[in-house]
């Protein structure tokens, strides 16, 4: 009975985090982007600085008609948003936010592989949407999504493997238990490669070629309306939460901080995640979109060699210090 209650409580907390954190990041994006562009952003909904804007957006999306194009593959078209969104919920289960047994949804032995594998499944949702919409813009978006995933999955995996080598384990809490402060300079190249590749996998600007609105309307999501479209947007923000959380856990030491590690570890995790999420928004406002060939070139000629060099460095240092 106690075990069942424990499991239900954990699932509930993860679910609440899954529902609220993406919205907080979305609202932050509204405001941060606005201020960086010298304007105010939403100010009306909810009264204080438009804090309820996203809730209003949600109500608007829910009221819209759910349209399925006549030529579309109906069932796959309707299933795609769920396939895009649910993997991020599963990944959140495995991310530890504090040092205690109770601060992670579920300890998974091969945690690094679990999170990367399940994140990769999410992209299938975009591919399904791109094909099933019976729309050439959607198809182009789906194609670009697939090409981008194939290019950036490899550096992401290699840098994660580098951290696993350094820690001698592939479990996420295990990696954090082994963390020392000097891993930060040691793994910094890997951290940058991982973060950039993760941005590309989420199709965030400057890697948003698959949804480039000035060329292919909105890529794979062109034909979507109402709640299903909102689910795709939610998947993007949930992806930001997951990516920033993972980068924090793998490279920035998660719950370790310069002081106050006892009992306040989760504050460090959340703080680092929030700073990274701010960085994601900042990058969106700062950089123009990369062209498709530049995207591929960046991955194959820069990120993959850098991640291989990081693995070599990790191996050498690991052998030397033993």
């Amino acid at each position: 009975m106690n075990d069942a209650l424990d499991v239900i409580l954990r699932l509930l907390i993860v679910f609440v985090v899954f529902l609220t954190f993406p919205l907080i990041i979305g609202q932050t994006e509204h405001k941060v982007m606005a201020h960086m562009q010298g304007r105010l952003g939403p100010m009306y909904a909810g009264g204080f600085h438009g804090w309820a804007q996203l809730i209003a957006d949600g109500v608007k999306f829910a009221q819209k008609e759910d349209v399925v194009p006549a030529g579309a593959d109906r069932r796959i078209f309707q299933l795609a948003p769920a396939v895009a969104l649910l993997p991020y919920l599963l990944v959140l289960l495995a991310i530890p936010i504090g040092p205690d047994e109770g601060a992670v949804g579920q300890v998974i032995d091969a945690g690094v592989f679990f999170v990367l594998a399940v994140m990769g499944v999410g992209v299938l949702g975009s591919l399904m949407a791109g094909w099933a919409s019976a729309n050439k813009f959607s198809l182009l978006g789906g194609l670009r999504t697939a090409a981008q995933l194939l290019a950036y999955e490899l550096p992401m995996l290699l840098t994660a493997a580098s951290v696993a080598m350094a820690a001698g384990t592939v479990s996420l809490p295990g990696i954090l238990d082994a963390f020392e402060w000097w891993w930060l300079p040691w793994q910094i190249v890997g951290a940058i490669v991982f973060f950039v590749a993760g941005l590309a996998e989420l199709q965030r600007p400057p890697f948003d070629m698959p949804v480039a609105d000035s060329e292919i309307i909105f890529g794979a999501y062109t034909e979507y309306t109402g709640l299903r479209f909102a689910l795709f947007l939610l998947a993007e923000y949930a992806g930001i939460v997951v990516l920033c959380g993972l980068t924090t856990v793998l490279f920035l030491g998660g719950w370790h901080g310069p002081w106050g590690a006892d009992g306040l570890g989760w504050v460090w995790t959340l703080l680092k995640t929030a700073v990274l999420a701010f960085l994601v928004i900042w990058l969106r406002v700062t950089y123009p979109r990369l062209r498709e060939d530049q995207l591929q070139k960046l991955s194959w000629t820069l990120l993959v060699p850098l991640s291989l060099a990081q693995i070599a460095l990790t191996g050498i240092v690991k052998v030397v210090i033993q």
Partner: protein
Amino acid sequence: MTLAATTGLLTAGPATKAAAETHGFLSPTGVEIAFVLVGLVTFGAAIVTVTTRQLVHAALWLVVTLGGLAVEYLLLTAEFIAWVQVLIYVGSVVVLLLFGLMLTKAPIGRSPDADSGNRWAALTVAVAAAAALVWVVVDAFRTTWIDLDGPAAGSTEATGASLFQNWVLPFEALSVLLLAALVGAIVLSRKAKAESAAPDARGATGRDTEGAR
């Protein structure tokens, strides 16, 4: 299934063999029932994959099949292999398949030409291969039981230890094989580029092959 069963045998063989006498096929446990049910779903999805006339649906049923296999690995406590299965096959191979299908603009609905005259030959080969595999695996692991209550027999540590202690040579041989395939693919793509492209269009085709890779 084979690989997981192998690791199970290698790592926990002696400990579990002693307990084999107490096991039987009658009065199955919950895990065994779940294993059979997931196996049936996987089998059904595999059948649909090769019989459906809709190309992209076939690829998506393949996702279900490979995902079902991953669940079977999990039930056999081979967690590491299960996640690698999802990462490589569902996350990369199927994405590559879908990429190819989209590139050739697979139609929505039935493809009338999605059939082959070799159907019966293919069926014969498939049934023969399946029979051989089932026979070998059943014969080899008939008396092996995985202790589900003890420490996981297929955890990352156990898998890594058995792979790099007992199976280093096959592992390295496979790595060399994959490397050879990789080099071969690069040679083929470079050759095609040199033949087809005029010198001034070289950069553009180079990008295309990079994207397709």
